[in-house]
């Protein structure tokens, strides 16, 4: 049943190829709400390959629509989200993932917040250590100057 819906959807796209597309359309959606929810979650994690910084869920581009439909086809045929994701990565590379995977090339990226914060804390600690522990006491000369300024009523403060 679902396959037929999707098949129909694909036919419609071919027929309406000239019409401008838009982000997720009613005609693309799967009948089963849980499957559709899975498709939505997945398409929010995937990047539209031809636009800047948009997920395929939000994108108007025809290519994004094609991938949205592809995802639904694969989910309908019983694949898990991970399998669909793996398939898309094998086809388009890590580029398609909005959240970069954790691997040697991206270690620095993922660890940077912790590293920067750690370095900042260390620097703050270092600055604290270097700073004098307490305010040095006033010299006799400064005491005299202070007394002159406050008119001798310093005890009150």
């Amino acid at each position, binding site marked *: 049943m679902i396959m037929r819906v999707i098949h129909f959807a694909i036919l419609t796209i071919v027929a309406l190829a000239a*019409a*401008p*597309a*838009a*982000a*997720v*359309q*009613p*005609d693309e*959606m799967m009948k089963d709400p849980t499957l559709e929810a899975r498709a939505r979650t997945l398409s929010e*994690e995937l*990047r539209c390959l031809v636009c*800047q*910084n*948009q*997920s395929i869920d*939000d994108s108007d581009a025809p290519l994004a629509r094609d991938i949205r439909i592809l995802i639904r086809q694969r989910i309908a045929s019983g694949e898990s989200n991970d399998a669909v994701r793996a398939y898309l990565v094998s086809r388009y*590379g*890590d*580029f*398609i*993932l*909005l*959240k*970069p995977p954790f691997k040697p*090339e*991206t270690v*620095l*990226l993922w660890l*940077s*917040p912790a590293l*920067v*914060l750690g370095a*900042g*804390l260390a620097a*703050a600690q270092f600055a*604290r250590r270097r*700073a*004098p522990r*307490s*305010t040095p006491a006033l010299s006799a000369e400064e005491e005299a*100057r202070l007394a*002159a*300024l406050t008119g001798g009523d310093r005890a009150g403060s």
Partner: protein
Amino acid sequence: MIVEIGHFALVLALGAALAQTVVPFWGARVGDNGLMEVGRNAALIQLALIAIAFAALVNAHLTSDFSVLNVAENSHSAVPAIYKISGVWGNHEGSMLLWVLILAIFGALVALFGRALPRSLRADALAVQGLISVAFLAFILLTSNPFERLAPAPFEGRDLNPILQDPGLAVHPPLLYLGYVGFSIVYSFAAAALIEGRIDAAWARFVRPFTLVAWSFLTLGIAAGSFWAYYTLGWGGFWFWDPVENASLMPWLAGTAFLHSVAVMEKRDALKIWTIFLAILAFSFSLLGTFLVRSGVLTSVHAFASDPRRGVFILAILALFIFGSFALFAWRAPMLKQGGLFAPISREGALIVNNLLLTTSCATVLLGTLYPLALEQLTGEKITVGAPFFNLTCGALLLTACFVAPFGFSLAWKRGDLFGVIQRLSLAIIVGAVTAVVGAAWLSSGSLFAPLAIGLAIFIIVGTLIEVVMRARRPGVAPGVALKRALGLPLSLYGAALAHLGLGVTLLGLAGLGFGAETIATLHRGAPERVGPYSITLDSVGERVGPNYKEAVTSMTVRSGERVVAEIAPARRQFAARQMTTTQAGLATLNFGQVYVAIADPTPDGAVPARLYWKPLVTLIWFGAGCMAFGGALSLADRRLRFGAAARAKVVAGSLARPAQ
């Protein structure tokens, strides 16, 4: 003719900027007051000349003079007048001209209001400001001349990009640039302080108003941009972690950190080196943002490589000002005297934590934005760093900063009593925690963000209010006296409180999104479709012709139960000149939330495929940003802290203070 006058004025402005750079700097070195004064006049003359150039370009756009390349490429005779004006900065050349105009305005403000400053400090600051002007004026004149003529002149212009034909363009870039460029003053004064080798609370006091102005405008600019994106792009998102957005967020984060550390310096004479560092950082990020947006390096490294003239020029400017200032910093900063001791548990300590979290998120945004570019250059591998990465990393850092905010606001300077503060904030902590738990129970599933954020938002709002009340009310004080005390509290305190409240309100708006609803459906006339607590009915579909577009416009009714609560008219606009279609979302504000409807092209039989959203509390996101900016303005209005006022007070107190000097 007017166009040539504009061009000529811009060349003269470069001359004035050169004079502003060289003469006062030399004057400060040899101690010649006359030479130092030249900087003041040069700054004012420069402003006048750039204003003439800008007016000339505005005039060319208003009169649709298509013999000017810039007008022919970015305007159309049928565009409404307001978009003819905003179209001036809706393109590369014009926006750079706006950039230098605002730069000159800030330079002139220093020239006019900097009288109370040490003469050499002001001269040096104006010289640095002049150098920034020289760099950008040369950039405009050599690579991005807005006054270039086109022969033969075309009969009609190529039109302004339809997405830009929106009031958003009239507001967003000028606000953003006022923020970006406002930090140039802070930068110039930091550089001047390093050159002079001396920095004190008076420096902080003079820089403070400029910081507040820049920060408030930047906050408004970012908020305006996000609201614009929200209603114009058609899927209800308001922040996409787009590199261009990140470019504006980085100076904001660094600027917010600076705003807090300069407060420490002003009040406690501490964190001097760190404050200078942040001052340089904030403007460096403004420059970096300008480079990222203007060079085209983000769209694709290849686009950058195919026309590298502009990109390389801005990169050179960037390198000069960033490396130059950090070299100066490395050389001179160790000579600055540190002062103001404090215990780790104190307001200063909390502000350091705030600073660390803000700068770390700033670094994360920077790395996330540039990492893909660097990786592709180094290994050829392409990756994407998108919203999920930033939400996770910056989200965690910034939520932690939000959590610290009420504690910092309530802690005492120098040595705080954490237990006392927790006791003081206990009500806020309890209310916040209860809200978070109730929120989590209500949602029952989904991410942790929404309940956490809503609890945190309530904690910040209640905690801030408690602190303000406690400052006014002491145990055993009569209500009338407490009210008097409340009125006597400094405006800067109210400003800070309002900014923190704004933060809580914005967070509340963000949390609200987790409680929203979405429906994707094809609407048929007369058949209601539910979204959240509302139902939406398509009433009619029609055609309408605008000045330079035609649109398919629908009319829909929003009902709550049987009651009609709003009428909306989402539409699709087609612009003939550029063959582009835009989505005009239908928005209805209900309480603090919005019903948001974006449509696709209607089908021939009159049905309308549409995305319907219910976004509770969404308007609070921008309302909160407005509160933050207004808080900045309130703080700015505090007479006690105005530089001139302090200087006048010093003159009165001078006879007393003299013997101590």
